[in-house]
C-alpha cells in the first residue's frame, strides 16, 4: 500500500488552514473586541507557520515577534483604553448592508481565486536561486541592503513620521497648571465650603461593615451603603455584595433602641434566614455575630 508522500508543509497547511479560517471568522463575528483580537492573533500565528512552511524562516520570526507580538498588542492596549467591556450589538443598522457585503465579499473572493487560479499553471515550484550563499536571512539582508536600500530608508522615514504622528494625535494640551498637593487640598476645602461635599476620602470597602473584602461596600453612619467605596468595573460587572443584608443587624439594633417594632423576623436579621440572594441559607444556626457564616455565604456566592 503506498503511503501518500505527506510532507511537513502539507501537514502544516491542512492542519492550520481550517483553524486560521475559523479564527478569522471568529474575529469578525465576536461580540467582545478582546475575543476578536485573540482571533486575529491565532490567524497571525497560523500564517507565521505557513511562512515557515514556505521556506521563509525570517518572515516566520518577524511575523511572530514584530507583527503579532508588537502590533497586535498595540490593539489590546487601545482596546483597554477604549473600553474592553463594551460589547457591540451585532444588529445591523444600515439597510441591506450585510447582504450586500456578503455578496461583494463572495464576489471578490471568487474573483481572486479565479484570477490566481489561471495565474499559476499546474503549480510547479521553482527552487530559490540564491544570489549569495547563505541561508534565507542572508539573502534577505543582501536584497534589502542591496537592491532595495532606497525603499528600506524610506520605510525608516515612514516609521518615524508614523511615531511622530501618533504622538501628535494623542497629545492633549494641559489646560490648567500641574495639580500640586497644596492645590488639591485647597480645592477640596473650597468644594466643601461651596456645596458641602465631604472633604475627606470616602470610606474604603468593608469599613464598619461586617467584612473587609474588596466587593463589600462601606456602611455610612445612617446604615446605607456607600456606592463610591467599590471599584466601578466591579460594579459594572455586578459582583458587588448586597449591603442591605450587612446593614440589617445595625438597623435591627437601632429600631430596638428607638423602641420601635424591629422589621423582619429575628432569624433572618441574624443571618440564619435565607441569604439576600434568595437561596436558603443551609448553614447551621449559630449565635449572632459569628463571622464564619458570613464567610461561607460569600464563598458560596463567589463560586457562582
Amino acid at each position, binding site marked *: 500500500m503506498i503511503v501518500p508522500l505527506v510532507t511537513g508543509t502539507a501537514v502544516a497547511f491542512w492542519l492550520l488552514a481550517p483553524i486560521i479560517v475559523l479564527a478569522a471568522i471568529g474575529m469578525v463575528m465576536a461580540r467582545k473586541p478582546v475575543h476578536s483580537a485573540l482571533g486575529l492573533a491565532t490567524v497571525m500565528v497560523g500564517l507565521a507557520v505557513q511562512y515557515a512552511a514556505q521556506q521563509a524562516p525570517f518572515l516566520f520570526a518577524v511575523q511572530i515577534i514584530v507583527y503579532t507580538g508588537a502590533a497586535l498588542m498595540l490593539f489590546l492596549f487601545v482596546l483597554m483604553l477604549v473600553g474592553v467591556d463594551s460589547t457591540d450589538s451585532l444588529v445591523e443598522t*444600515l439597510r441591506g*448592508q450585510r447582504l*450586500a*457585503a456578503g455578496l*461583494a*465579499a463572495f*464576489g*471578490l473572493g471568487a*474573483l481572486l481565486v*479565479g*484570477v490566481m487560479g489561471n495565474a499559476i499553471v499546474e503549480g510547479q515550484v521553482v527552487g530559490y536561486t540564491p544570489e549569495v550563499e547563505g541561508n534565507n536571512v542572508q539573502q534577505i539582508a543582501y536584497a534589502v541592503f542591496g537592491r532595495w536600500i532606497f525603499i528600506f530608508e524610506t520605510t525608516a522615514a515612514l516609521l518615524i513620521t508614523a511615531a511622530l504622528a501618533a504622538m501628535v494625535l494623542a497629545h492633549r494640551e494641559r489646560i490648567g497648571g500641574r495639580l500640586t498637593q497644596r492645590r488639591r487640598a485647597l480645592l477640596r476645602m473650597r468644594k466643601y465650603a461651596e456645596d458641602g461635599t465631604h472633604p475627606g476620602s470616602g470610606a474604603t470597602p468593608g469599613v464598619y461593615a461586617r467584612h473587609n473584602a474588596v466587593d463589600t461596600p462601606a456602611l455610612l453612619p445612617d446604615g446605607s451603603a456607600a456606592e463610591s467605596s467599590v471599584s466601578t468595573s466591579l460594579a459594572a460587572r455586578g459582583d458587588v455584595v448586597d449591603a442591605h443584608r450587612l446593614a440589617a443587624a445595625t438597623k435591627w439594633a437601632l429600631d430596638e433602641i428607638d423602641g420601635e417594632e424591629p422589621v423582619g423576623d429575628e432569624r433572618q436579621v441574624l443571618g440564619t434566614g435565607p441569604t439576600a440572594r434568595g437561596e436558603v441559607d443551609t448553614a447551621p444556626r449559630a449565635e449572632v455575630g459569628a463571622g464564619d457564616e458570613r464567610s461561607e455565604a460569600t464563598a458560596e456566592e463567589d463560586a457562582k
Partner: protein
Amino acid sequence: MVNPLQTAILEPVAASGLFQMAWLMIAIPLVSAAFLLLVGKASNAWGHLLATLAPIASFGIGLALFFQLLGASVAERTVEVPVYEWIGVGPWDVQIALLVDQLSILFVLLITGVGSLIHIYSIGYMEHDERRRRFFAYLNLFIAAMLVLVLANSYLVLFIGWEGVGLASYLLIGFWQHRPAAAAAAKKAFVMNRVGDIGMALAMITMFAHFGSVEFAEVGKNAAQFSPLTATLVGLFLLLAACGKSAQVPLQAWLLDAMEGPTPVSALIHAATMVTAGVYLIVRSGPIFDQTPVASTAVVVVGTVTLLVGAWIGTSKDDIKKVLAGSTMSQIGYMILAAGIGPAGYVFAIFHLLTHGFFKANMFLGAGSIMHGMDDDVNMRNFGALGRAMRWTFLTFAMGYLAIIGFPFFAGFYSKDHIIVAAFEHNMIVGICALIGAGITAYYMTRLMVMTFFGRKRWEHGVHPHESPGVMVFPLVVLAILSVVAGVAMNSWINGWLVPAVGGEEHTYGLLDGFTEPIGWLTMGVVAIGVVIAVSVFKSVPKEAPRGNFLERAARRDVYGDDINNAVVVNPLMAFIGLLTGFDRGKVDGAVEGIGASTSGLGQVLRRLQSGYVRSYGLTMVAGAVLVGAVLILGQLA
C-alpha cells in the same frame, strides 16, 4: 372660345427728347412728399400749396407727352425710357425703366388730372386739420406711386408702384389714426391688398422661371410659349392680384371699410385711380389672357358677380359714402367684365374706366362737400332737400348722377353701353346680368339723389347746410363738365387710339349708336324703370331705417362679406395661432426646460450615495473592484 382678335405687340421705341424726362413726373411728387415729411412743422403754413403744385406739374409734363404721342405715328407711340439697372444677378437683368404708350399716357392724364383737382379740393376740405401737411405729403406719395404703377415697363417695377399705392392707401385710410375704426380699416385694407400681392408675386416668379424676365414686351412676345396649364395659373394669379387691388368679390371687404378715410382720399384712391389698377393689370397682361380661355372666363365671372354684389350693397346703405363705394365696386365689376371679354373689351374697359374716374370722383367730392356742410354727417336719412341749400353741389352731383346711370349723351351712356353690347356678344347670361346691373345702378343712384337733394328736410336740429367754399366747388364744376363731355369726346377717338396698344379691331363708333341698336334701347328702358321705381319708393323717407326684407338686411351687412372672411380665414387662423403660441410656450420650451429640470433631478438622486457611513463607502469600493475585475476577465474571455 379663343378670341380671334389678335393682341398687337409693338416694339418699344427708344426714348428721345422730352420722353427722357418722363421719370420727372414721378420724381416731382415723390420729392415733394419726402420734403414735406422730413421738413416737418416748418412747412405747415405753405406745405399744402407746394403739394398741390406737384401733381399739376406732372399733369403738365403728361399733357406734353400726350401731345407728342398724338403727333407721332402709330409705330412710335410706344416709348421706353430706361432709368437705371436695378438687379443684375445671374440670369436676371431687371431694369428700372418706364414705358410711355397710348394706354399709360391716358392713365397718367387721369391720375394727375383728377389728382390735381382733388389736391385743390383738399385745400378747402382739410382747412382746419392740424396734420394737413402730412395729409398732402401722403397724397403726393400716392400720386408718385400710382404713376410708377402705370408707367412701369415690367411687372416688377409695376409691383413697386403696386405696393407703394397700397402703402399710401394704408396711410391715408388710417389718416385719423386716433379713431380705432380708421386704424383697423387701414390695416384691413393693407393686409387684403397683400393677399392680392401674393397672386402678383406668384405670377412674376413664374414668368421669371420661364422667361428670365418680366418686361411687358418680353412676356407679350413669349406668352405663346406658355403651356396651357401655366398660362391658366398665371392668369388666375393676375386675377387674384387684380381682385386684391380693385376690391373684386373674393377680396372686396376692405373697400367699404376704406370709407373711414377723409373723402378726398375716397375720391382719389377708392374711386378714380387705385381701384382701377386691377383693370390696368389685366389689360396690360392681354397676351397672357389670350392664351388661357379659362382665366378669361374666370375674370368675366368675377366681374359679373362683383357687378351685382356692388349694386346690391348700394341699394340699402344709408351712409352716402358707402353707397358710392358700393357703386364703385359695381362699376369696376363692369370694367373687369369688359377686360375679361378679351381684346374686344379692353378698349371699352379703359373708356369706362376714364369716364368713371371723372363722374365717380365728382360724386365723391360732392358727397364730401355735403358732409362739409352737414358737420361731417354721412347718414342720408338726415339729409333731404339739400338741392336748394347747396345749389352748386346739387348741380355738379346731378351731372355725375346722370352720367353714371347712363343718361343719353352723358359720359356713362357711351362707355357703359359699349360694355353691355360687348357682354351680350360674349355671352347671353353675362349680358343679362350687365343689363340688370345697369337697372339696379339707376335704382340706387336715384335713391341717393332723392334722399339727399329732394323730399322734405330731415336735418338734425342745429344743422344749417351751406354751400362749400370756392376752392372746393371749382374742382366739382370741372369734373361735372368732364363727366358730361368725356363720353362724347372719347367715344369715337379712343378706339383708334388704344387698339394699337391693347389689341382689338379698328372700328369707328358713331355718337348715336346707342339709339340704333336694340340693346341700346333695352338698356335705356331698364334704366328708366330703375329711376321710376326709386322715385316712387323714396317719396317719403322715414327717419329710422325700416327693418327691410332679407335682401336689404344682407346689403346692410355688406352681403356678409366680412362675416365670410372672418369665418373662413380670420377666426380659424387666430385660433390656430393661439394654439401654436401655447404649443411653443408649453411644449417646445417645456422640452428645453425639461432637460434642465431632469438633470438637476438626477443630481438630487445621486447625492444620496454620499451616506456618510464609512462602511457603505467600503461596500461601494469592493463592489466597484469586483465589477472592474469581472469586466476585465470578461474582456479577456471575449
